[in-house]
């Protein structure tokens, strides 16, 4: 047997459906774009500044970390860019530069890489970073204060803060249409309800996020808010405000659905999603924080490994 050619010898399967981590991440970025664009239209150049700084610093942190630890360079997979992008979307347009850079450091280096990089972290890195900066620099996230110097053609009010401090009557002025069209103050990419929902639906159709998570999260928010509202409608706002204000939508479609930190089996997903929704409203209504999405996701990330122990029985398994 004389052979002239060397052939590639490897194991089955020899076909692959062509899906890639990078494609997934670029699609997530694409889906987030409408919400960011509206933020930019609202807040102008400073929003552009915050988002681009957030994306670029996240990529740079990843680059630096990979170099220092001599891991193979992973910025091409788009994961760091998506982390930066989502982090930027949660920030107010007035966030100072050092906060952005610090936040992406926490997300990329502490939240992601130290745990071993993609796929290995238990908490959503963006959420970890947000939790830390929100606790440390509360004032920056007082969206009403922060965005005071903006001149809007709509009531420049952060609905959840108004709700917390002035009660239900303060949010009466928000119509569903206003909330959906981003006529509320909040994070750069977190207020354009229609954009976030459209992006979410796109990701669901492409099979990139698990629809069960988004839906059960929203259902959890809706039902819990409704129960509160029915028990005392003078103190607790109805479900619409809770669904479309604050970080609910970006949380449902972009944060809670992160692959690594969420469950994959159907029943665990329902518990995870509904639990996140429930905690969100609990924190908003009776907790000390204005918005509960970030902490709710963090807590449910923590119990995720336990939840995923509830798994379907493999066929053929002998007891």
């Amino acid at each position, binding site marked *: 047997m004389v052979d002239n050619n060397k052939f590639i010898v490897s194991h089955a399967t*020899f076909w*692959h459906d062509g899906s890639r981590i990078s494609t997934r991440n670029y699609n997530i970025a694409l889906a987030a774009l409408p919400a960011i664009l509206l933020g930019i239209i609202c807040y102008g150049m400073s929003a552009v500044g915050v988002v681009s700084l957030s994306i670029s610093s996240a990529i740079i942190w990843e680059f630096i970390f990979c170099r220092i630890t001599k891991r193979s360079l992973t910025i091409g997979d788009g994961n760091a860019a998506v982390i930066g992008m989502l982090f930027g979307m949660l920030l107010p347009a007035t966030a100072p530069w050092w906060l952005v850079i610090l936040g992406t450091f926490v997300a990329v280096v502490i939240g992601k890489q130290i745990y071993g990089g993609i796929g290995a972290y238990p908490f959503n890195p963006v959420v970890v970073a947000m939790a830390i900066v929100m606790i440390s620099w509360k004032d920056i996230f007082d969206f009403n204060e922060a965005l005071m110097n903006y001149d809007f053609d709509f009531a420049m009010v952060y609905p959840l803060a108004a709700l917390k401090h002035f009660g239900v009557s303060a949010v009466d002025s928000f119509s569903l249409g206003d909330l959906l069209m981003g006529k509320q103050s909040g994070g750069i990419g977190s207020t354009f309800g229609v954009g976030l929902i459209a992006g979410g639906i796109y990701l669901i*159709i492409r099979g990139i996020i698990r629809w069960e998570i988004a839906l059960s999260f929203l259902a959890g928010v809706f039902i819990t808010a409704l129960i509160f509202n029915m028990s005392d409608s003078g103190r607790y706002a109805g479900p619409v405000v809770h669904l479309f204000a604050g970080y609910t939508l970006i949380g449902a479609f972009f944060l809670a659905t992160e692959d*690594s930190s*969420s469950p*994959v089996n159907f029943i665990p997903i329902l518990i995870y999603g509904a639990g996140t929704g429930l905690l969100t409203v609990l924190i908003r209504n009776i907790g000390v924080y204005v918005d509960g999405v970030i902490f709710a996701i963090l807590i449910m990330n923590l119990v995720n490994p336990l939840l995923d122990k509830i798994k379907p029985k*493999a066929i*053929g*398994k002998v007891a």
Partner: protein
Amino acid sequence: MIKRSFIGLLKPRLEYGSLEETPSLKQIPIPKEITLLSNCPFDKKNLLLKKKATVKTGQKLLLYKESDEYVVSSVTGQVSSTSSYTGDFGRSYTAITIEVADDEEVDDEFKDISKDASLETIKNFLAFSPGNPLGNPPVKLFVDKDKSISTIVVCCADSDLLITTNRHVVKSDIDAVKEGISILKAATGVNDVVMIASHGQMHELSAIGEKVSQVNDTYPSALPHLIMKDILSKVVPAGKNPEDIGVGFISAEAVASIGKAFSNGQIPLTKILTLVKKDGSKSLVSARIGTPANDIFNAFNITLNEDDRIIFGGPMTGSSVYSENHPVQPDTDAIIIQDRDDIPVISDYPCTNCGDCLRVCPVNIQVGMLVRLLEGGHYEEAADQYDLYSCIECGLCSYVCVSGMPIFQYIRSAKYELGRANTAEATNNG
């Protein structure tokens, strides 16, 4: 290669494709040299066949002392070399190479014996005939005392993608299939026969007069374990095969081999396979068992380049070979050539927990968790807690893995390693 659809929410649909797409059969001339593979580990000392031994077409060649393993020569000629061949996961095979003589002479040992269509005859002469996998040919199942087969499943569908062998056999030689079934029934005494039809075969097969059931036209419905579950409503326990619960699977091609052998008094020696070229076009080929792939490539004017891939078998479950001289075996249902640019990259990314694998797994294995354990070499734990042995080896998890991990390879090699460890333990204790 079928890619993920834009609507990724849907499960992938891998259709078996129709026979009509494949053009007529091309006969490959008898090559200058053939190689017969047996899955017996090579052992030069005990090998009965010596170099220069002459063999005739259709002659049964016993391989080793005190063993009843054999191959059947598909040509007339002289043994030119005996060697070891190393296959997937380092399995060792015996390779017998025969230089073909100018004049063909047919061996007549089988002719006399073929008057008695007994199970012994089938087992002793037809285990190497077309349609029988190396190692566990179905014809041996029926004589195995431990198995006590009570149902015979004749698979007329093809189990992997792109393959059309069984469907071609049914279409071109239904009489041989029919004859084979009646011989098999008489010899085994088993009367419960179920024929598995693929899309469009129902009509042809009903004429035979046995039970016929149609299998779904998407992969992996025609894999034995799924036929058991969906058609026979019997779940094969993890780590077991259909024969362990009394169901013997045999392919339409193997059944037709039995039919032909007894009606012609000759052991069938030509294998029907599908050749898939780089551009994806398919041709049906008939070649003597042992024909080097190269002879087939030459017949179609195919040239291969460095870093291309040659696959023996289907795209999901086949195996790739080192050499373009790799011989056609009794169960080589397809030879696929993949251009180096079409070979999917296997990445070193870890699992990102996207969950796509467990959504496609036909037996509900938590593939993501399983592969994390296998990567770390925790085979025992993988078997105990994450259902390694429930895997029916369809390969879909590897096909969809977003990280591009060779999951299926991990699974197969873990099973192989555990199997070896168990055998070693058994030998030590015994």
